[in-house]
Every structure is written in structure tokens, then in C-alpha cells.
């Protein structure tokens, strides 16, 4: 099953390299890895999606903790959370494609040279639904950012103030 891990890491050069190297050398397969800034300038946030069993996901978490620059790791899969992936999909311009896009709440952000770029930000399943709907119409180019996720409600992931 899919596991979504969120890791807070020190915003320092080479941290992404350390995480990527860990996954390679421990033979952990990842679906996606995103990294970006947070509310705290000293802290970056990674979202890692794994397709693995629970034991393996737990090993990934413990190995992430072994990296000195990794401050906090949390698995959000089991908790109420919002996850978003962003896709840009270039298709041949057509009414069917436009209709499919509108059905998924996606936006058409470019329409030129006989092609359209469809922009969708949603959870992975919805994005995959749109991609499947567009595939028969001819997908020319596709890019996805990978998943970012956040726990819902009062649940907040922040570095422990005692250490940050």
C-alpha cells in the first residue's frame, strides 16, 4: 500500500542528496519525493510517497531519523490529511478534452498552436482519473510535481521547539 511520509529537514546544502542516497543504498523504492520551503526559513519539508508494506515504511522512517539533518518524520497516511499533486497535461485541443478537464475541475491555462495545457491540482487518484480520461484523446506531454501532504485540523507538524 501507499505510505506518505512527511520529513522536516534542516535547510542546508546537500540534504536532498543525503535523503536520495539513503533510498538508493537501502534499496527503498519511492513513488515520489518533493521538497520545498516551509513557514520556518531554517526548515525544509519533504513529502515521500512509498509503495511498500508497513515494516518497510517503518524502516524508511527510522533510517531517515538516522540522517543528522532530518529533524522530524511523520507518517500521515493513517491520519486525516490533505494530499495534493499538481499535473500539467498537454493535449491536442478538442472539445472532449476541455469537457474532461472541466469534469475534474481542472483549468485550461494555455490554448495555442492547436494544443491545450490542462492544469490540475488534486489528490493522486483524481489526477490519475483525469489522465486516464485524456489518454484516448492523445496526451502529448505530461508533468507531475509529486505529492505534498498535510495533516488536517489541529494536528501540526513542526520541529520540537526544544531542538529547533
Amino acid at each position, binding site marked *: 500500500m501507499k505510505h506518505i511520509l512527511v520529513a522536516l*529537514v*534542516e535547510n542546508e546544502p*546537500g540534504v536532498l*542528496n*543525503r535523503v536520495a*542516497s539513503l533510498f538508493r*543504498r537501502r534499496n527503498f523504492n519511492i513513488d515520489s519525493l518533493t521538497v520545498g520551503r516551509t513557514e520556518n526559513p531554517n526548515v525544509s519539508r519533504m513529502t515521500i510517497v512509498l509503495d511498500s508494506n508497513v*515494516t518497510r515504511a*517503518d*524502516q524508511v522512517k*527510522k*533510517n531517515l*531519523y*538516522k*540522517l*543528522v*539533518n*532530518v*529533524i*522530524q518524520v511523520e507518517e500521515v497516511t493513517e491520519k486525516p490529511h490533505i494530499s495534493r499533486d499538481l499535473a500539467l497535461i498537454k493535449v491536442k485541443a478538442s472539445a472532449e478534452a476541455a469537457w474532461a478537464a472541466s469534469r475534474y475541475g481542472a483549468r485550461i491555462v494555455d490554448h495555442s498552436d492547436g494544443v491545450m495545457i490542462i492544469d490540475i491540482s488534486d489528490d493522486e487518484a483524481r489526477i490519475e482519473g483525469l489522465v486516464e480520461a485524456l489518454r484516448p484523446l492523445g496526451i502529448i506531454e505530461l508533468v507531475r510535481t509529486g505529492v505534498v501532504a498535510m495533516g488536517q485540523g489541529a494536528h501540526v507538524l513542526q*520541529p*520540537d521547539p526544544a*531542538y*529547533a
Partner: protein
Amino acid sequence: MLLTGAEIIWECLIREGVEIVWGYPGGAILPTYDALSKYEGRIRHVLVRHEQGATHMADGYARATGKVGVAMATSGPGATNMVTGIATAMMDSSPIVCITGQVPTSVIGSDAFQETDVTGVTLPITKHNFLVMRIEDLVPTLRKAFFIARTGRPGPVLVDIPKDVQNKKIEFEWPTEPIRLPGYRPPKQATQDQIERALELIKAAKNPLILAGHGVNMSGAERALQEFAERTQTPVALTLLGKGAMPENHPLCLGMMGMHGAAAVNMAIQEADLLLAFGMRFDDRVTGNLKTYSPNSRKIHIDIDASEINKNVRVDVGIAGDLRTVLDQLNPHVPTLEHKAWLNHIRDWQEDTDQRDIINQVTDSGKLYAAHAIRDLWAATKGDAIVVTDVGQHQMWTAQYYLHERPRTLITSGGLGTMGFGFPAAIGAKMGRPNESVWAIVGDGGFQMTLMELATAAQENVNVNVAIINNAYLGMVRQWQEFFHEERYNATPMLSPDFVKLAEAYGIAARRVTKREEIAEAVAWAESINGPTVLEFVVEKADIVYPMVPAGADLDKMIRRPMPDWSENH
């Protein structure tokens, strides 16, 4: 005080308690070597003959003393030569700090002369590493390096320092504030719930067995372990690096487990109903086939590294914590128990083992067996030397026949199995523990990988003794070829130089031993000499380390030494 980066490096090392640095100069580290004259008498630098040797010496020092060992090298080839030593220290959790020069920050990334991305190269084989781009970061970085190396699960840390950072000046002040490492929190103690669940299993067990590893020695848990074992009458099996965790003459100490462990120990593991894994990591060399490993036992695993728990073997109670701390939490609640039937059962297995043991087979043939040489070396040194081995058959025979009573007296490359480790590590061990007798037991193969350090031993007059177990083969590989490759001895017969003459060419006293009766006198002679010595033991060429669990086989499916045919010899 306005100091250069180079001076600050030495200031920091001295404040971190460093006594000796093993290293090799070169262009990118030259400012630091230049600053050394200012610190003469406060810190000792030892010139090695190859940077790999520097890392093994720092490692041997660290394992013998429990302090952080320090190695230094220049950029590019100097740093890449350290890779094997760093990987060795990583696998065996040995605390070392490697300081490397780097090309100036202005040319980093331009393929400058002797430029290598050393933090990139060593990323997967260090506990952590640093590239210091600003002189302001130098002091905090060096403090972090030592702190990370020695705490938690110890390991190697590399600090790469560009030449211009060494040359720049800054006001030096040793900080008093705590080190800021928001992502570094090694586990310490067990929770009450973990202790209670462990106690339940301990009380319920009929056939319990302790597996004691390197963590016992590293956390200083020997006394706590002994207390636990005695109170619960639980026998103790040792991993290779766990040797010294429990005195081997203790009635509850069974000796080594695993591929070349005593058969009785492996049978006990397979039959146990409770395994207590203390500071060990279920390496494939101790488990054999994981699918059939100790099938009927519940398992309690205590290790400082949370990621070791449930990595190879699923356990019932996993406790990430410092072993000594956790045992100190556990011991006050541990009841007095008896396991007489279980201990007698193990004793029966041991008797069978003893009968097959080559040590108990009298050889009046005039042949010198490696096992006898090592057992006699043990006797001649009263079992009290610090023994540092290389890797191969002699390493396993040392583990089997040199019995250790004290922690930190067997130093060996366990996880990485680094040939060439033994001799330089012995130099480091001796320099760290100058009042101990130190013996490097090495094979003819491994010794030739780092024997250039004879010059280091001679130049520094390090009083270390080398015992070369020379069987004119890469013996362990030869053994695998005999068992698993139909005796095709490709690339294992080995022609060696005249080791006695070679040592003498370095100005080192040396002797050759070819008969068992010469051993005691030769060892006494070596120990009487103030300075390095070399003893070459010319041993039987085709001997085998028994017993042996073939790689990946069930732990109790050992290849045993055939029972002696007493009718023929006696």
C-alpha cells in the same frame, strides 16, 4: 585571539582531547601542517605511509581506548585513499574523525588539481560529513563532528576543509553554548512498558540465550550483562565483535556464534525459546538462513540504533536505547532464575564440539597448525594481550582460540571484513594503550596490503608485535574454493617475500617459527624487545576453519571437523 583556520583546527582538536593525529600532508592540507609547529608538545602527529593506514590506526586507537581517533589527509587522492578505512569504521561503529584538505572555495567544482568531491564520495560511508565553506563555521563544525562521532551509535565523521578556509583568520573563541543539532537525538532509555514486556518474556523462558554484541563493549555494559546473566542463569553467546563482553572463562559464556562459531552455540540459538539480543545486529554471518533462524524463540532486541530493530529478524520486544542504561533499568526487576536442564543440554553439545576440536587433537607429526600457533600465543601472552587481527582464516582461528577476558582486547574488522586492517589498527591500538601488550595477528595476504606501515612503526618505535600466520594461500578464499568450487584454487596460491628479511630491511627485529615447540620462546623474545617485532609462523597450507555454516545455510547445518580416528594415532 585572531587565528588562522589551520590554527583553529589544532586548537579544536586539543580541546576535544585529541592526543594523536595520524596523517599524510599534501597541497590542500599544507597550511594545517604548517601550523603544527605552533602546537608541538601539545599534540602528536604520526606520519603514515598511506592514508588508508591513517584511518585504520585512528580506528584501532578508537576501539582500544573508546576515544575518538583522528586521521588527516590532503584533498583528492589523499582523501580517496581513506575510503576503505572510513567504510570499515562505519560498518563496525567506530568513532573516528577524518579531516581532509580541499581545493580553495573559489575553484570548487572546476576539476582543479587534486579536487575530488569527498563529501559526495563518503556520504554513504560516514555517519555524517561536512564541507566547511566559511571560516565562521569551522569551530561549530568540528565540535559537531566529534560529538556525532562519539555519541549514539558511534561512527566516522569526515570534515572537508578548503585551503582558503585554513588560511583565513578569525577571532577564535571556544564556545560554551550547547551544540545545535536539531535532528540528532540518539535514543537513551527504555519505556516502562518495554521493560515490563521484556520481563514477562524473561520470566516465561525455559531455554533463554543472550546474544552479546559490540554494543556491550561500546556502551560499557559488561558488568550489567554479567549481573543479568548470573541472576537469570542465562548462557551468553558472543558475536565476533562482542568478544570481551563476557570473560570467556566464565561458566555461562559459550563463546562465538555464527558462520565459524562453536557448533554448540549455533545449536543453542536454534533450540532457544528466548533470544536476548544485546547490542548486536543479526548480521548474515551470525544468522545464516533468516527463514530458519531460531524458529521457536521469542526475541528481545536492545540496540542503540532503532533502524536495526526488525531489520533482519522480527522481534517481540524491540528497545532502541543505550544498552547499559537499559540493562540498568532492567536488572533491578530481574528475578533469580534457574535453567539447569537447558545448561546441561548445551554442555552435551559442547562435549561433542570439544572432541572434534583440533586443539584437543595431539599432533606429534611436527606439523605446525595455525590453530595451535594462536592457542600457544594465547598461552604465552597469558591471554592478556590486546589482539588485533586482519581478515580471513587467521581471524576466525583467533576468535576461536585466543580467549578474551576483558572488553576492548579483540580488535577486528567484522562488518566490512577489510584485509589490510590488522597491522595499522594494531599500531593505533598500541599508541592508545601503550602499557598493554599488543599483538597483530595477520595473514600473509592481508599483511601485504598495508605492510608499508612497518616504516611508520619503525619511525615512531611503536612497540607492537606482528604474528604472520603464513600458509602461502589466501586461505579463507581457498577454503571456499575447496568446499564450494570443486577445489579450483584460482588466484589463491600466494608467493610472499621473505618476511624476516623484509622486516629487517625496515630495521625491525624478526624471526621465523616453524615448530610448535619454538612458539613460547619466540613470543617471549618478541615481548622483550622495545620496539616493533615480526614473527612469521609458517603453518600448514591446506587447513580449514571448522565448523562452517555455508553462506545462507541453516545455522545448525554446519560443516564439522571430522571426528578424530583415535585408533590410528593412539
